[in-house]
C-alpha cells in the first residue's frame, strides 16, 4: 500500500497516484487496486484514505442538494426550464414553486417566474440520464431581485467561499454587500452603491485569477481596505 505522489502535488490525466486500500473519489479512476488521476489538478489525500484530485478547470456537474443560481429560459405548460450553467437544462415543476392550487385558466404562471428571472434554487433529484429537478420551496430560495451577476469558473467557487466561509465573509464585511456564491459558478452581488459592488466584483475576479496561490486571504483583505480607503475616504 503506497501513495506515489506528494499531497497537493500536480497530476495530469493518467498519473498513478496510489496503490492499495484507498477510496477513489472525484477526479480519479481505479483499476484493480491502483488509483489514477483522470483530470489535471492537485492531489488531495483526505481522511479515511479518500483520494481525489482538485481540478483546475471543468464544467459544473450538479449534485443533489446543491444550491444553484439559475436563469429561467422557458415555461413549458407547468414546468419552468432553468439554465443552471451545467451541460444540461434543469426542470422546475410548478409543484415545487407554488404552495396552493392555482387555476391555470385564470392565472398566467409567468407571473411567478418570468423568462430571464434569476432564481436561487436547490437540486432535489438527478436521474441516470441527468434529468435535473429543482425546487424553490424552502426558506432562502426563490427569485433574486436586482443585484449583479458575476460568472466564474465553478471549480474556483470553494476558494471564493474560503475555509468555513472566511473569504466570502471578509468580502461581505469590507464591502457591505449581500453576496451569494453558488456551486455552479455564479456569484450574485447586491450592495448599497455601485462603487461597493464594483469593489466586491473586483475582489471575486482577483480570487478566481489567483485561486491556486497561497496567502490569498491576506492579499484580498489588503486590496479591499486600500481600495475602500481611496473610494470612500
Amino acid at each position: 500500500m503506497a501513495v506515489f505522489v506528494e499531497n497537493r502535488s500536480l497530476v495530469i490525466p493518467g498519473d498513478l497516484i496510489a496503490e492499495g486500500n484507498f477510496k477513489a473519489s472525484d477526479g480519479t479512476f481505479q483499476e484493480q487496486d491502483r488509483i489514477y488521476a483522470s483530470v489535471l489538478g492537485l492531489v488531495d489525500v483526505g481522511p479515511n484514505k479518500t483520494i481525489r484530485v482538485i481540478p483546475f478547470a471543468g464544467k459544473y456537474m450538479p449534485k443533489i442538494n446543491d444550491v444553484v443560481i439559475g436563469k429561467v429560459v422557458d415555461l413549458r405548460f407547468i414546468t419552468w426550464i432553468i439554465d443552471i450553467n451545467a451541460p444540461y437544462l434543469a426542470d422546475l415543476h410548478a409543484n415545487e414553486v407554488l404552495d396552493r392550487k392555482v387555476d391555470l385558466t385564470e392565472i398566467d404562471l409567468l407571473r411567478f417566474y418570468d423568462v430571464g428571472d434569476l432564481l436561487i434554487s436547490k437540486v432535489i433529484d438527478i436521474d441516470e440520464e441527468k434529468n435535473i429537478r429543482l425546487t424553490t420551496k424552502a426558506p432562502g430560495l426563490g427569485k433574486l431581485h436586482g443585484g449583479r451577476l458575476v460568472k466564474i469558473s465553478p471549480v474556483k467557487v470553494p476558494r471564493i467561499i474560503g475555509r468555513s466561509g472566511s473569504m466570502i465573509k471578509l468580502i461581505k464585511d469590507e464591502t457591505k454587500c449581500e453576496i451569494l456564491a453558488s456551486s455552479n459558478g455564479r456569484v450574485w452581488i447586491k450592495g448599497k452603491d455601485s462603487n461597493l459592488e464594483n469593489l466586491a466584483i473586483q475582489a471575486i475576479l482577483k480570487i478566481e485569477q489567483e485561486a491556486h496561490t497561497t496567502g490569498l486571504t491576506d492579499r484580498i483583505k489588503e486590496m479591499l481596505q486600500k481600495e475602500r480607503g481611496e473610494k470612500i475616504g
Partner: protein
Amino acid sequence: MAKVGAPEKLITKDGLRLDGRRLDEPRPVKLEVGILKRADGSAYIEQGRNKILAAVYGPRELHPRHLQKPDTALVRCRYNMSPFSVPERRRPGPDRRTIEISKVAREAFEQAIFAEHYPRAGIDIFIEVLEADAGTRCAGITAASLALADAGIPMKDLVSAIAVGKIDGQVVLDLTGIEDNYGQTDMPVAMMPRRNEITLLQMDGHFTSEEFEQALELAIKGCKILYEKQREALKTKYGGP
C-alpha cells in the same frame, strides 16, 4: 515556398536527413496550453514547420438533439486546414481527406475520454491547421489532447501521436513534407503512452513485416518523447514543479 524538384537523396552519406536530423530524431516541438480565452480548453503546437491550434468545448448541451446518447457523451472532432496552410492555396471547407482525419482523430480520443460521465452531452474538439508540413494529424492529436486536459475533461491518459515512415529504404521518425512526398511509406501512430495502448494506426505505402515491427517500436519511442513535452507544457501553465 516554390515547388522544389525531387531531391536526389533523402538521407546523406553521414546518415543524416535533409534537415540534419538523425533517423530516430523527432522535429523540434513547442507546446502551449490555454491560449484561447473563450474555449473551455485550448492548446497550440509547433512541430517543425507545422503550426496547429486545438480547441475543446464542453461537455455542453448537444444539438441537434437526435444525436444525444442517453448513456454517454458524444465526442465530435473537426480537423480543418486553413486555405493558406500549404504552398498552393487549398480550397476551403472539408474534403475527403479532412473528413477521414476528423473521424480517425475522434476515434483516437474516444478510447481515452470518460464520456460516460456526461450522458446526453457533447464534447467538441477542433483542430485547425495554420501551417502544414506533414504529420499534421499527429501534431493535431497531440495538441488536442492537451486542450482536453486543459478543459478539465476526465481521461484515462493523454494521447500522443507521431508519424514514422520509410525514406531511401530506411525507417525514420517524424517525416517532413519532402520526406513524405518523395519517401516510400508514411505511418501515423497515436497512443496512450502510460498505458501502452495504440488508438490510431494508419499506413500509406509499404513495409515488410520486419520494417513494420521496427517502425512501430520507433513510433512508440517517439510518442513517449512527445508525452514528456506534453507533461511539461501542462505543468508550465500551472507553475507546478
